Structure formats: structure tokens, C-alpha cells
């Protein structure tokens, strides 16, 4: 009996996996699609895919990296889809947040995707440049460049209030 059969099909383990990783998967998807309903739909799709295809993992870091990588791919597919191109997502209302937090989030979400995603993975998840490269399927040097440019753009947008 393969590990994946046991780990993927026990309802207790399913609960543990969803409780453990839903925060990361949801927020990563949100950083791509910028609205909550779409992020939730994609995150659910990611977990269903895990149910159907997840390989056995030697340790939890691999499992998380796999989930993040699948999330990245699904978000890219979603953003490229014809359906998405023909519709306009409702901008997310962040009015319920403290002003400082919503302002920072809006600045980051307004960055181009190639700068926004490394910034999210670096600052929210604490991934290294090498790990971000694996998850997003890019070269580490490219990720490093995008991260630096993203910071610079934020500095330009935020002005003197920005510091690292």
C-alpha cells in the first residue's frame, strides 16, 4: 500500500493537511488573483488536486512546496484563461483592515505579478530566493532581480515612508 493512498484518503489526515496549509495556500492564491472568492476557488482546486495526485513526501517542507507550486500553476492558468480575460474581477474591499495594513497591501497588490509573487513568498512565507525559484519555476538570479526591483518600486510608490 503506497504512502499516498493512506495519507491522502484518511479523513483525519485530510483535515490536518487542510488546517495546516489552507492559510498559506489561500494567501498565496490571493497574492496572485487579488480577490478572495477567486483565491478560495483556486485553493479548493489545489487541495482536490492534492487528493488526486499528491506524491509521497519525505518531510513536510516538501509537501508545502508541492502545494505552493501547484497553487502558482493554477493561478497562472486562471489568469490566462479566456473566461478570466473576458471578465473583470470585483476589486477587493479592504476597508475592514487597519489603514496602515490595507495601504501596504494595496501597494504590493498593485505591483506587477513578477515582482509581487516573490515579495509575497519572501516576506509572508519566509522562503529563500532559491526556494522561491523552485516554487515559481524561475532561475534564482531572476527571482533575486525581481525581488530587488519590487522593493525599489515599492519605495518609489510609498516614498519616504518606505524603509526595509
Amino acid at each position: 500500500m503506497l504512502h499516498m493512498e493512506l495519507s491522502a484518503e484518511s479523513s483525519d489526515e485530510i483535515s490536518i493537511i487542510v488546517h495546516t496549509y489552507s492559510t498559506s495556500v489561500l494567501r498565496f492564491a490571493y497574492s496572485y488573483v487579488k480577490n478572495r472568492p477567486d483565491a478560495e476557488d483556486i485553493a479548493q482546486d489545489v487541495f482536490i488536486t492534492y487528493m488526486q495526485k499528491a506524491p509521497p513526501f519525505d518531510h513536510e517542507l516538501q509537501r508545502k512546496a508541492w502545494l505552493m507550486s501547484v497553487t502558482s500553476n493554477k493561478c497562472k492558468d486562471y489568469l490566462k484563461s479566456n473566461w478570466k480575460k473576458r471578465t473583470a474581477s470585483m476589486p477587493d474591499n479592504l476597508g475592514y483592515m487597519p489603514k496602515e495594513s490595507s495601504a501596504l497591501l494595496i501597494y504590493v497588490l498593485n505591483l506587477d505579478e513578477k515582482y509581487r509573487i516573490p515579495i509575497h513568498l519572501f516576506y509572508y512565507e519566509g522562503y529563500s530566493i532559491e526556494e522561491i525559484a523552485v516554487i515559481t519555476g524561475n532561475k534564482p538570479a531572476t527571482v533575486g532581480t525581481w525581488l530587488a526591483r519590487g522593493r525599489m518600486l515599492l519605495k518609489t510608490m510609498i516614498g519616504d515612508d518606505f524603509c526595509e
Partner: protein
Amino acid sequence: MIFVNENPYKKAMEYVDFDTKFEEQTIALMVCAAQKKRTIRQVRLPVGSWRYIAAAAAIALLFAAVPFIRGLQNTTETAGVTVPMVMTAAGDESSASTKNDPTVITFSGAPQLFDSINKLVQQSDLIIIGKVEKALPVVRIDAVALGLVEGLPSLEENVSSFQIRIDQVIKGGFSPGDTIQVDMSGGLADNIYENYIDTNYPEEGLTYLMFIDRTNRTEANQYFLYMFVGSFDGFSEIADGRIFPQENTSIFEQGSSVDDALQKITEAIASGSATVNN
């Protein structure tokens, strides 16, 4: 002051308020998908499992040949497909059987491979050289009823079991001459052939170097007390003092000396013990 370092951005992201029922709904969907999984699994012929493809083809040919062997008597046509009539135990003609070809179910997923002998040794409770005395008949079991899987109403699966006579013990609490039963998922039973990511099976009469996991199951579970470790690294054929691992494995070189392999395994065991002791 707005600044981007780890905490303010993380804090801002934490404020994003998702549906409170997201986890509950997702878990329900996943459990539902798990139940459907065994009935909607992708069906494709495995690559490299020629023995089983051949077996399936042979069985299909046998069924196809039945009408001709019977002189094309007792046949019927249903929805354009000619199938043999089946005689019941009471001697009455039953409705046409549709069990001509085995249903082939392939379980997809990335194989578990080892990149170092240390990891392989650490994960193995038992390392032996042994001979497959008997390949037991493949059976179709309900893994839930036997307590092997929890959380589902039922889960039918095929089990291929092998009776192994131990010739040499490298690791584990057995002695030469002991026999154990090692179980693997898959095989052909009840006209259903299940293939797990192109898994190979040991052959009766051959001798193998085996890496075996002693699971936490008990005799009451009947199956999967002992399993081969990993997807392909669990057993490697031994012949003429040389080792012949399965394809796609990298721990041992094809045709390398068994003595060298045993030396490496012994060193890995010692290395693991030293690590534990330290």
C-alpha cells in the same frame, strides 16, 4: 510609516478575511473526492509492466476464444458486442457476462525514490537476502473492513503477497530459514488489474536483496504487516553474486558485486547507529 519587512506585510496579509467555512467545505470536498477516486481513476496502460499487459492480453484472448471453442454456440449480442453466455451452477443460461477484459486501473503519482543508501537503510526495519518461495494468489480485499484504512465507508483494492524465505539477515530480528509474507498493492484479481505507478513485482523462485518496512499493523489486519520500502528500491534481484536493481533506481549499480552492496549497507547501518548514539 509604512515599511516592508517581514512583519507588517505578514500582518496585513493575516487581516485578509476568507470564508470561515472554507476549511470545512474543502475537507468535505476532499473526502468526497477520495470516495470517488477509486471509481474515477485514470485508466491507462502502464509503461514497462509488460508481464501484466501480457497477462491481461492472454486473459482477454482466452475470453474472446470461448465462443469459437464452443463452436460459436451459446453466444448473444448485446449493444453490438458479442459476449459468451455463462452457465450458472444450477444449469440455467444466465444473462450475458460482460467480464471479457480485465479492468485496468492505474494509480498515478510520483514514485518514492531514494537518493542515498543511508536514507534507504534508515527507513528499512528489515534488510535481508531472501528467495521468493511462493507468489500467493492475488486477492481483492476491503481495506477498511480489515482496519488498514480509516475514514472511508469501504476501499477495495488488490493485494499481491509473496512468501519469502530468509537466507541472510543484514538488519532486523530474524534468522536465516525464517519465512515472512511481504505484501504489495496491485495485481490482477476479480478481473481487475491494478497497477501502482508501474510497480514491478518479485518473481517466484528468484533471490533478492530486500529492504522491508515493518508497519504498525498487526496480524489481525491480515495484510501489509511487511512491505517493501519505496517504489522501486525495495527489492533488487541477485544472481551470480551480482545485484540487479529495478530501473530508475540509483542506489546500486546494475551488475555490481553483492559483497560491495552489503559492505555499503553495513557501513550505512553503522553510520546510522553512530548518529543515534551521538
